[in-house]
Protein backbone atom coordinates (compact mmCIF):
# COMPACT_ATOMS: atom_id res chain seq x y z
CA UNK A 1 0.00 0.00 0.00
CA UNK A 2 2.66 2.44 1.09
CA UNK A 3 5.18 1.22 -1.47
CA UNK A 4 2.61 1.69 -4.19
CA UNK A 5 2.06 5.22 -2.92
CA UNK A 6 5.76 6.00 -2.93
CA UNK A 7 6.40 4.61 -6.39
CA UNK A 8 3.39 6.33 -7.88
CA UNK A 9 5.15 9.65 -7.14
CA UNK A 10 1.97 11.24 -5.91
CA UNK A 11 -0.17 10.34 -8.91
CA UNK A 12 -3.25 9.85 -6.75
CA UNK A 13 -2.66 13.15 -4.98
CA UNK A 14 -2.29 14.94 -8.31
CA UNK A 15 -5.52 13.37 -9.54
CA UNK A 16 -7.42 14.57 -6.48
CA UNK A 17 -5.89 18.05 -6.71
CA UNK A 18 -6.91 18.33 -10.36
CA UNK A 19 -10.40 17.06 -9.58
CA UNK A 20 -10.92 19.63 -6.81
CA UNK A 21 -9.55 22.41 -9.02
CA UNK A 22 -11.99 21.36 -11.73
CA UNK A 23 -14.81 21.43 -9.17
CA UNK A 24 -14.00 24.99 -8.11
CA UNK A 25 -13.48 26.08 -11.74
CA UNK A 26 -16.98 24.85 -12.53
CA UNK A 27 -18.25 26.91 -9.62
CA UNK A 28 -16.49 30.02 -10.93
CA UNK A 29 -17.95 29.44 -14.39
CA UNK A 30 -21.42 28.96 -12.91
CA UNK A 31 -21.14 32.16 -10.88
CA UNK A 32 -20.00 34.12 -13.92
CA UNK A 33 -22.85 32.78 -16.05
CA UNK A 34 -25.29 33.52 -13.25
CA UNK A 35 -24.09 37.11 -13.07
CA UNK A 36 -24.42 37.57 -16.84
CA UNK A 37 -27.84 35.93 -16.89
CA UNK A 38 -29.05 38.14 -14.07
CA UNK A 39 -27.64 41.28 -15.69
CA UNK A 40 -29.22 40.60 -19.08
CA UNK A 41 -32.32 38.87 -17.71
CA UNK A 42 -31.45 35.90 -19.93
CA UNK A 43 -33.43 32.80 -18.98
CA UNK A 44 -31.60 30.43 -21.31
CA UNK A 45 -28.30 31.42 -19.80
CA UNK A 46 -29.71 30.89 -16.32
CA UNK A 47 -30.62 27.31 -17.22
CA UNK A 48 -26.94 26.69 -17.94
CA UNK A 49 -26.21 27.28 -14.28
CA UNK A 50 -28.44 24.36 -13.37
CA UNK A 51 -26.67 22.17 -15.92
CA UNK A 52 -23.29 23.06 -14.47
CA UNK A 53 -24.46 22.05 -10.99
CA UNK A 54 -25.23 18.57 -12.24
CA UNK A 55 -21.81 18.33 -13.83
CA UNK A 56 -20.21 19.49 -10.59
CA UNK A 57 -22.05 16.79 -8.64
CA UNK A 58 -20.40 14.14 -10.78
CA UNK A 59 -16.97 15.71 -10.23
CA UNK A 60 -17.59 15.79 -6.48
CA UNK A 61 -18.35 12.07 -6.41
CA UNK A 62 -15.13 11.42 -8.35
CA UNK A 63 -13.13 13.50 -5.89
CA UNK A 64 -14.42 11.64 -2.84
CA UNK A 65 -13.81 8.22 -4.30
CA UNK A 66 -10.31 9.19 -5.50
CA UNK A 67 -9.48 10.55 -2.06
CA UNK A 68 -10.47 7.34 -0.36
CA UNK A 69 -8.67 5.22 -2.93
CA UNK A 70 -5.53 6.33 -1.08
CA UNK A 71 -4.63 9.91 -1.85
CA UNK A 72 -2.93 11.95 0.87
CA UNK A 73 -2.44 10.89 4.48
CA UNK A 74 -5.47 9.35 6.21
CA UNK A 75 -5.75 12.11 8.80
CA UNK A 76 -6.21 14.78 6.13
CA UNK A 77 -8.78 12.96 4.00
CA UNK A 78 -11.90 13.86 6.03
CA UNK A 79 -10.91 17.55 5.94
CA UNK A 80 -10.47 17.50 2.17
CA UNK A 81 -13.83 15.81 1.76
CA UNK A 82 -15.45 18.38 4.04
CA UNK A 83 -14.02 21.16 1.86
CA UNK A 84 -15.47 19.58 -1.26
CA UNK A 85 -18.85 19.21 0.48
CA UNK A 86 -18.87 22.91 1.41
CA UNK A 87 -18.10 23.88 -2.20
CA UNK A 88 -20.98 21.62 -3.17
CA UNK A 89 -23.21 23.58 -0.78
CA UNK A 90 -22.27 26.77 -2.61
CA UNK A 91 -23.30 25.11 -5.84
CA UNK A 92 -26.61 23.98 -4.40
CA UNK A 93 -27.38 27.48 -3.15
CA UNK A 94 -26.44 28.93 -6.54
CA UNK A 95 -28.64 26.43 -8.33
CA UNK A 96 -31.58 27.14 -6.03
CA UNK A 97 -31.15 30.87 -6.53
CA UNK A 98 -31.03 30.31 -10.30
CA UNK A 99 -34.33 28.46 -10.04
CA UNK A 100 -35.82 31.27 -7.95
CA UNK A 101 -34.84 33.81 -10.58
CA UNK A 102 -36.36 31.67 -13.31
CA UNK A 103 -39.55 31.46 -11.34
CA UNK A 104 -39.72 35.15 -10.45
CA UNK A 105 -38.39 38.04 -12.49
CA UNK A 106 -36.10 40.34 -10.57
CA UNK A 107 -37.52 43.88 -10.36
CA UNK A 108 -35.47 46.39 -12.37
CA UNK A 109 -34.97 48.55 -9.28
CA UNK A 110 -32.97 45.75 -7.70
CA UNK A 111 -31.09 44.56 -10.78
CA UNK A 112 -27.98 46.73 -10.41
CA UNK A 113 -27.29 45.84 -6.81
CA UNK A 114 -28.12 42.16 -7.40
CA UNK A 115 -25.75 42.04 -10.33
CA UNK A 116 -23.04 43.58 -8.16
CA UNK A 117 -23.54 40.86 -5.56
CA UNK A 118 -23.38 38.22 -8.28
CA UNK A 119 -20.15 39.75 -9.60
CA UNK A 120 -18.61 39.77 -6.14
CA UNK A 121 -19.65 36.13 -5.66
CA UNK A 122 -17.78 35.33 -8.87
CA UNK A 123 -14.70 37.19 -7.63
CA UNK A 124 -14.84 35.28 -4.37
CA UNK A 125 -14.88 31.98 -6.26
CA UNK A 126 -11.84 33.03 -8.25
CA UNK A 127 -10.02 33.81 -5.03
CA UNK A 128 -11.12 30.48 -3.56
CA UNK A 129 -9.50 28.67 -6.48
CA UNK A 130 -6.33 30.70 -6.05
CA UNK A 131 -6.36 29.86 -2.32
CA UNK A 132 -6.75 26.14 -2.95
CA UNK A 133 -3.86 26.11 -5.44
CA UNK A 134 -1.74 28.02 -2.95
CA UNK A 135 -2.60 25.57 -0.17
CA UNK A 136 -1.50 22.59 -2.24
CA UNK A 137 1.78 24.34 -3.01
CA UNK A 138 2.23 24.99 0.70
CA UNK A 139 2.08 28.78 0.42
CA UNK A 140 0.76 31.16 3.04
CA UNK A 141 -2.98 31.68 2.70
CA UNK A 142 -3.41 34.65 4.97
CA UNK A 143 -3.71 37.38 2.32
CA UNK A 144 -6.03 35.29 0.14
CA UNK A 145 -8.37 34.43 3.02
CA UNK A 146 -8.39 38.09 3.96
CA UNK A 147 -9.28 38.99 0.36
CA UNK A 148 -12.27 36.65 0.48
CA UNK A 149 -13.39 38.19 3.77
CA UNK A 150 -13.15 41.68 2.28
CA UNK A 151 -15.41 40.64 -0.60
CA UNK A 152 -17.85 39.09 1.85
CA UNK A 153 -17.95 42.27 3.90
CA UNK A 154 -18.70 44.26 0.73
CA UNK A 155 -21.58 41.94 -0.05
CA UNK A 156 -22.88 42.38 3.48
CA UNK A 157 -22.90 46.15 2.93
CA UNK A 158 -24.79 45.78 -0.34
CA UNK A 159 -27.19 43.32 1.30
CA UNK A 160 -28.46 46.07 3.61
CA UNK A 161 -29.18 48.39 0.71
CA UNK A 162 -30.74 45.57 -1.31
CA UNK A 163 -33.20 44.67 1.43
CA UNK A 164 -34.05 48.31 2.03
CA UNK A 165 -34.74 48.80 -1.67
CA UNK A 166 -36.72 45.55 -1.79
CA UNK A 167 -39.08 46.91 0.83
CA UNK A 168 -40.05 49.62 -1.65
CA UNK A 169 -40.92 47.10 -4.36
CA UNK A 170 -44.67 46.53 -4.61
CA UNK A 171 -45.75 42.86 -4.59
CA UNK A 172 -49.10 41.55 -5.75
CA UNK A 173 -49.38 38.75 -3.19
CA UNK A 174 -47.72 36.99 -0.27
CA UNK A 175 -46.25 34.38 -2.63
CA UNK A 176 -44.72 37.00 -4.87
CA UNK A 177 -43.18 38.60 -1.82
CA UNK A 178 -41.91 35.23 -0.63
CA UNK A 179 -40.36 34.46 -4.01
CA UNK A 180 -38.59 37.82 -4.03
CA UNK A 181 -37.38 37.20 -0.50
CA UNK A 182 -36.12 33.69 -1.38
CA UNK A 183 -34.29 35.05 -4.40
CA UNK A 184 -32.52 37.78 -2.44
CA UNK A 185 -31.76 35.46 0.48
CA UNK A 186 -30.21 32.88 -1.83
CA UNK A 187 -28.23 35.51 -3.68
CA UNK A 188 -26.70 36.87 -0.49
CA UNK A 189 -26.08 33.50 1.20
CA UNK A 190 -23.78 32.22 -1.53
CA UNK A 191 -20.95 34.37 -0.27
CA UNK A 192 -21.38 33.02 3.28
CA UNK A 193 -20.76 29.48 2.05
CA UNK A 194 -17.75 30.55 0.01
CA UNK A 195 -16.33 32.19 3.12
CA UNK A 196 -16.93 28.92 5.05
CA UNK A 197 -15.03 27.05 2.36
CA UNK A 198 -12.09 29.42 2.57
CA UNK A 199 -12.05 29.15 6.37
CA UNK A 200 -11.91 25.39 6.02
CA UNK A 201 -8.97 25.67 3.64
CA UNK A 202 -7.13 27.59 6.32
CA UNK A 203 -7.89 24.83 8.82
CA UNK A 204 -6.43 22.22 6.46
CA UNK A 205 -3.43 24.45 5.83
CA UNK A 206 -2.70 24.91 9.52
CA UNK A 207 -3.15 21.24 10.38
CA UNK A 208 -0.62 20.14 7.82
CA UNK A 209 2.16 22.52 8.84
Amino acid at each position, binding site marked *: MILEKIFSHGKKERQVTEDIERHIQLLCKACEIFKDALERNDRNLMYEVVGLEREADAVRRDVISHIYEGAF*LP*YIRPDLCKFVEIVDEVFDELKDTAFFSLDFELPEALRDESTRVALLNFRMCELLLISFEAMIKGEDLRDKILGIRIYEKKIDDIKLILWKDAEQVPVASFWEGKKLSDLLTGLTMISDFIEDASDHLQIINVSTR
Partner: protein
Amino acid sequence: MWKVLSGVLLGWSLGANDSANIFGTGYATGLVKYRTAIWLTAVFLMIGAVLEGSKCMEVVGDLSSLTAIEAFYCALAAAITMTALTILAIPASCSQAIIGAVLGAGILSSTADFSKLYKIVACWVFTPICALFTAYLLHRILGFVINKTIISLTKRSLLYSAGIIVVGCYGAYTLGANNVANVTGIYVGSGVLSAEVAALIGGLSIALGVLTYSRKVMETVGKGIVPLDPFSALVAVLAEALSLHLFTQIGVPVSSSQAIVGAVVGVGLVGDVQTVSLKMLSRISIGWIMTPVAGGVLAYLFIRVMT
Protein backbone atom coordinates in the same frame (compact mmCIF):
# COMPACT_ATOMS: atom_id res chain seq x y z
CA MET B 1 17.48 -27.42 25.79
CA TRP B 2 13.95 -27.30 27.22
CA LYS B 3 15.28 -24.73 29.66
CA VAL B 4 15.28 -22.24 26.81
CA LEU B 5 11.49 -22.38 26.71
CA SER B 6 10.99 -19.80 29.46
CA GLY B 7 13.20 -17.46 27.47
CA VAL B 8 11.07 -18.10 24.41
CA LEU B 9 7.99 -17.24 26.49
CA LEU B 10 9.67 -14.05 27.65
CA GLY B 11 10.59 -13.17 24.08
CA TRP B 12 7.08 -13.82 22.92
CA SER B 13 5.59 -11.47 25.53
CA LEU B 14 8.21 -8.83 24.69
CA GLY B 15 7.29 -9.03 21.02
CA ALA B 16 3.58 -8.84 21.73
CA ASN B 17 4.01 -5.77 23.94
CA ASP B 18 6.79 -3.73 22.45
CA SER B 19 6.03 -3.90 18.73
CA ALA B 20 3.31 -1.31 19.33
CA ASN B 21 6.03 1.22 20.21
CA ILE B 22 7.25 1.05 16.65
CA PHE B 23 4.27 0.94 14.35
CA GLY B 24 1.53 1.72 16.84
CA THR B 25 0.95 5.30 15.72
CA GLY B 26 1.35 4.40 12.06
CA TYR B 27 -1.30 1.72 12.42
CA ALA B 28 -3.62 3.87 14.52
CA THR B 29 -3.57 6.71 12.00
CA GLY B 30 -4.19 4.33 9.12
CA LEU B 31 -0.81 4.88 7.49
CA VAL B 32 0.27 1.27 7.77
CA LYS B 33 -1.79 -1.87 7.49
CA TYR B 34 -1.55 -4.29 10.43
CA ARG B 35 -0.06 -7.12 8.37
CA THR B 36 2.56 -4.83 6.83
CA ALA B 37 3.48 -3.53 10.28
CA ILE B 38 3.94 -6.91 11.93
CA TRP B 39 5.87 -8.49 9.10
CA LEU B 40 8.23 -5.54 8.72
CA THR B 41 8.76 -5.52 12.49
CA ALA B 42 9.43 -9.26 12.61
CA VAL B 43 11.89 -9.24 9.71
CA PHE B 44 13.93 -6.21 10.80
CA LEU B 45 13.86 -7.31 14.40
CA MET B 46 15.47 -10.59 13.39
CA ILE B 47 18.12 -8.78 11.36
CA GLY B 48 18.90 -6.52 14.34
CA ALA B 49 19.06 -9.46 16.73
CA VAL B 50 21.39 -11.45 14.51
CA LEU B 51 23.68 -8.56 13.53
CA GLU B 52 24.05 -6.69 16.84
CA GLY B 53 22.14 -8.71 19.42
CA SER B 54 25.22 -10.14 21.07
CA LYS B 55 26.47 -6.71 22.16
CA CYS B 56 24.23 -6.55 25.21
CA MET B 57 24.38 -10.18 26.23
CA GLU B 58 27.55 -9.87 28.27
CA VAL B 59 26.04 -7.42 30.72
CA VAL B 60 23.17 -9.76 31.58
CA GLY B 61 25.48 -12.67 32.18
CA ASP B 62 28.00 -10.67 34.19
CA LEU B 63 25.66 -9.81 37.04
CA SER B 64 25.54 -13.28 38.56
CA SER B 65 26.84 -16.75 37.89
CA LEU B 66 23.90 -18.86 36.86
CA THR B 67 23.44 -22.51 36.20
CA ALA B 68 21.23 -23.61 33.35
CA ILE B 69 18.27 -24.35 35.59
CA GLU B 70 18.67 -21.05 37.38
CA ALA B 71 18.62 -19.35 33.99
CA PHE B 72 15.36 -21.10 33.23
CA TYR B 73 13.72 -19.88 36.42
CA CYS B 74 15.02 -16.35 35.95
CA ALA B 75 13.48 -16.10 32.51
CA LEU B 76 10.27 -17.60 33.85
CA ALA B 77 10.16 -15.12 36.72
CA ALA B 78 10.74 -12.26 34.31
CA ALA B 79 8.02 -13.52 31.98
CA ILE B 80 5.48 -13.79 34.79
CA THR B 81 6.43 -10.34 36.11
CA MET B 82 5.99 -8.85 32.63
CA THR B 83 2.61 -10.48 32.15
CA ALA B 84 1.33 -9.47 35.58
CA LEU B 85 2.38 -5.86 35.18
CA THR B 86 0.91 -5.71 31.69
CA ILE B 87 -2.40 -6.90 33.10
CA LEU B 88 -2.15 -4.17 35.77
CA ALA B 89 -1.52 -1.67 32.95
CA ILE B 90 1.82 -0.66 34.39
CA PRO B 91 4.39 -0.18 31.62
CA ALA B 92 6.72 -3.07 32.19
CA SER B 93 10.32 -3.18 31.12
CA CYS B 94 11.69 -6.55 30.13
CA SER B 95 15.23 -5.38 30.85
CA GLN B 96 14.32 -4.47 34.40
CA ALA B 97 12.44 -7.72 34.95
CA ILE B 98 15.27 -9.95 33.78
CA ILE B 99 18.00 -7.98 35.53
CA GLY B 100 15.95 -8.08 38.75
CA ALA B 101 15.47 -11.83 38.35
CA VAL B 102 19.17 -12.42 37.68
CA LEU B 103 20.10 -10.43 40.77
CA GLY B 104 17.52 -12.29 42.83
CA ALA B 105 19.06 -15.57 41.74
CA GLY B 106 22.50 -14.15 42.36
CA ILE B 107 21.61 -13.12 45.89
CA LEU B 108 20.49 -16.66 46.58
CA SER B 109 23.69 -18.17 45.21
CA SER B 110 25.83 -15.34 46.60
CA THR B 111 27.28 -14.64 43.18
CA ALA B 112 25.54 -11.32 42.64
CA ASP B 113 27.91 -8.59 41.46
CA PHE B 114 26.27 -5.31 42.40
CA SER B 115 29.11 -3.19 41.10
CA LYS B 116 27.92 -3.74 37.55
CA LEU B 117 24.46 -2.59 38.54
CA TYR B 118 25.33 1.11 38.62
CA LYS B 119 26.08 1.23 34.91
CA ILE B 120 22.84 -0.60 34.15
CA VAL B 121 20.63 1.57 36.37
CA ALA B 122 22.25 4.71 34.97
CA CYS B 123 21.34 3.56 31.47
CA TRP B 124 17.75 2.82 32.52
CA VAL B 125 17.38 6.30 33.96
CA PHE B 126 18.95 7.91 30.94
CA THR B 127 16.87 6.02 28.40
CA PRO B 128 13.76 8.22 28.54
CA ILE B 129 15.87 11.33 29.12
CA CYS B 130 18.04 10.60 26.10
CA ALA B 131 14.96 9.87 24.01
CA LEU B 132 13.35 13.10 25.20
CA PHE B 133 16.26 15.31 24.20
CA THR B 134 16.80 13.47 20.94
CA ALA B 135 13.13 13.84 20.04
CA TYR B 136 13.08 17.53 20.95
CA LEU B 137 16.18 18.31 18.90
CA LEU B 138 15.13 16.18 15.93
CA HIS B 139 11.70 17.78 15.89
CA ARG B 140 13.18 21.27 15.91
CA ILE B 141 15.91 20.64 13.37
CA LEU B 142 14.05 18.35 10.98
CA GLY B 143 10.97 20.50 11.30
CA PHE B 144 12.96 23.57 10.31
CA VAL B 145 14.55 21.81 7.34
CA ILE B 146 11.31 20.32 6.08
CA ASN B 147 9.42 23.60 6.39
CA LYS B 148 12.04 25.26 4.25
CA THR B 149 12.46 22.57 1.62
CA ILE B 150 9.33 20.45 1.26
CA ILE B 151 6.30 22.69 1.33
CA SER B 152 3.93 21.10 -1.17
CA LEU B 153 1.17 19.06 0.41
CA THR B 154 1.66 16.15 -1.95
CA LYS B 155 5.42 15.91 -1.34
CA ARG B 156 4.97 16.07 2.43
CA SER B 157 2.37 13.35 2.23
CA LEU B 158 4.81 11.12 0.41
CA LEU B 159 7.63 12.00 2.80
CA TYR B 160 5.65 11.07 5.88
CA SER B 161 4.31 7.87 4.32
CA ALA B 162 7.79 6.72 3.36
CA GLY B 163 9.29 8.06 6.55
CA ILE B 164 7.05 6.14 8.91
CA ILE B 165 8.01 2.89 7.16
CA VAL B 166 11.74 3.54 7.07
CA VAL B 167 11.82 4.75 10.67
CA GLY B 168 9.65 1.84 11.76
CA CYS B 169 12.03 -0.66 10.19
CA TYR B 170 14.95 1.01 11.92
CA GLY B 171 13.00 0.94 15.18
CA ALA B 172 12.38 -2.79 14.78
CA TYR B 173 16.06 -3.35 14.01
CA THR B 174 17.20 -1.55 17.16
CA LEU B 175 14.57 -3.33 19.25
CA GLY B 176 15.96 -6.64 18.10
CA ALA B 177 19.55 -5.53 18.55
CA ASN B 178 19.03 -4.17 22.05
CA ASN B 179 16.36 -6.35 23.60
CA VAL B 180 17.24 -9.84 22.42
CA ALA B 181 19.78 -9.90 25.24
CA ASN B 182 16.92 -9.64 27.74
CA VAL B 183 15.35 -12.73 26.34
CA THR B 184 18.21 -15.20 25.83
CA GLY B 185 21.23 -13.39 27.29
CA ILE B 186 21.08 -15.39 30.50
CA TYR B 187 21.55 -18.63 28.56
CA VAL B 188 24.83 -17.33 27.18
CA GLY B 189 25.98 -16.39 30.69
CA SER B 190 25.06 -19.82 32.03
CA GLY B 191 26.64 -21.59 29.09
CA VAL B 192 23.52 -23.14 27.61
CA LEU B 193 23.77 -21.32 24.29
CA SER B 194 26.38 -19.53 22.24
CA ALA B 195 25.79 -15.81 21.63
CA GLU B 196 24.92 -16.36 17.98
CA VAL B 197 22.38 -19.11 18.65
CA ALA B 198 20.94 -17.13 21.56
CA ALA B 199 20.47 -14.14 19.27
CA LEU B 200 18.73 -16.29 16.69
CA ILE B 201 16.39 -18.05 19.13
CA GLY B 202 15.70 -14.83 21.00
CA GLY B 203 14.98 -12.98 17.79
CA LEU B 204 12.65 -15.70 16.57
CA SER B 205 10.71 -15.75 19.84
CA ILE B 206 10.24 -11.99 19.81
CA ALA B 207 9.21 -12.13 16.15
CA LEU B 208 6.71 -14.82 17.04
CA GLY B 209 5.19 -12.58 19.68
CA VAL B 210 4.95 -9.76 17.18
CA LEU B 211 3.27 -11.92 14.56
CA THR B 212 0.80 -13.64 16.82
CA TYR B 213 -0.30 -11.35 19.62
CA SER B 214 0.51 -7.69 18.99
CA ARG B 215 -2.80 -6.55 17.54
CA LYS B 216 -4.51 -5.79 20.84
CA VAL B 217 -1.67 -3.67 22.18
CA MET B 218 -1.30 -1.89 18.84
CA GLU B 219 -4.92 -0.93 18.88
CA THR B 220 -4.82 0.45 22.40
CA VAL B 221 -1.48 2.24 22.17
CA GLY B 222 -3.20 5.45 21.19
CA LYS B 223 -5.17 5.62 24.44
CA GLY B 224 -2.28 6.52 26.69
CA ILE B 225 -0.71 9.02 24.35
CA VAL B 226 -1.89 12.30 22.90
CA PRO B 227 -2.69 11.81 19.21
CA LEU B 228 0.39 12.83 17.31
CA ASP B 229 0.55 14.36 13.85
CA PRO B 230 2.49 12.26 11.32
CA PHE B 231 5.68 14.27 11.66
CA SER B 232 5.74 14.09 15.46
CA ALA B 233 4.97 10.37 15.38
CA LEU B 234 7.84 9.84 12.95
CA VAL B 235 10.25 11.86 15.09
CA ALA B 236 9.21 10.04 18.28
CA VAL B 237 9.89 6.60 16.82
CA LEU B 238 13.17 7.78 15.32
CA ALA B 239 14.30 9.22 18.65
CA GLU B 240 13.35 6.01 20.41
CA ALA B 241 15.24 3.92 17.85
CA LEU B 242 18.34 6.13 18.02
CA SER B 243 18.36 5.93 21.82
CA LEU B 244 18.06 2.16 21.75
CA HIS B 245 20.84 1.93 19.19
CA LEU B 246 23.05 4.11 21.35
CA PHE B 247 22.56 1.92 24.40
CA THR B 248 23.18 -1.14 22.27
CA GLN B 249 26.66 0.23 21.51
CA ILE B 250 27.15 0.90 25.23
CA GLY B 251 26.13 -2.71 25.80
CA VAL B 252 23.13 -2.34 28.09
CA PRO B 253 19.63 -3.57 27.24
CA VAL B 254 17.04 -0.88 27.95
CA SER B 255 13.29 -0.44 27.72
CA SER B 256 11.82 0.60 24.36
CA SER B 257 8.50 1.46 26.07
CA GLN B 258 10.21 3.94 28.36
CA ALA B 259 12.19 5.32 25.46
CA ILE B 260 9.05 5.98 23.41
CA VAL B 261 7.39 7.69 26.39
CA GLY B 262 10.42 9.95 26.74
CA ALA B 263 10.38 10.66 23.01
CA VAL B 264 6.67 11.52 23.04
CA VAL B 265 7.21 13.93 25.95
CA GLY B 266 10.13 15.47 24.05
CA VAL B 267 7.98 15.98 20.97
CA GLY B 268 5.25 17.50 23.08
CA LEU B 269 7.68 19.96 24.63
CA VAL B 270 8.31 21.49 21.22
CA GLY B 271 4.72 22.59 21.03
CA ASP B 272 4.53 23.32 24.74
CA VAL B 273 2.05 20.51 25.13
CA GLN B 274 1.94 18.07 27.97
CA THR B 275 1.74 14.81 26.08
CA VAL B 276 2.00 12.50 29.04
CA SER B 277 -0.13 12.93 32.11
CA LEU B 278 1.25 13.02 35.63
CA LYS B 279 -0.76 9.87 36.30
CA MET B 280 1.07 8.08 33.49
CA LEU B 281 4.42 9.31 34.78
CA SER B 282 3.69 8.07 38.29
CA ARG B 283 2.71 4.70 36.86
CA ILE B 284 6.00 4.52 35.01
CA SER B 285 7.91 5.39 38.17
CA ILE B 286 6.08 2.65 40.07
CA GLY B 287 6.97 0.27 37.27
CA TRP B 288 10.62 1.20 37.55
CA ILE B 289 10.67 0.10 41.17
CA MET B 290 8.24 -2.77 41.05
CA THR B 291 9.59 -4.55 37.98
CA PRO B 292 13.10 -5.46 39.09
CA VAL B 293 11.91 -6.10 42.64
CA ALA B 294 9.11 -8.41 41.49
CA GLY B 295 11.43 -10.15 39.06
CA GLY B 296 14.04 -10.60 41.74
CA VAL B 297 11.63 -11.88 44.37
CA LEU B 298 9.99 -14.33 42.01
CA ALA B 299 13.31 -15.71 40.76
CA TYR B 300 14.55 -16.05 44.33
CA LEU B 301 11.41 -17.94 45.33
CA PHE B 302 11.38 -20.20 42.25
CA ILE B 303 14.96 -21.24 42.67
CA ARG B 304 14.67 -21.59 46.41
CA VAL B 305 11.57 -23.73 46.23
CA MET B 306 12.29 -25.78 43.11
CA THR B 307 15.96 -26.64 43.62
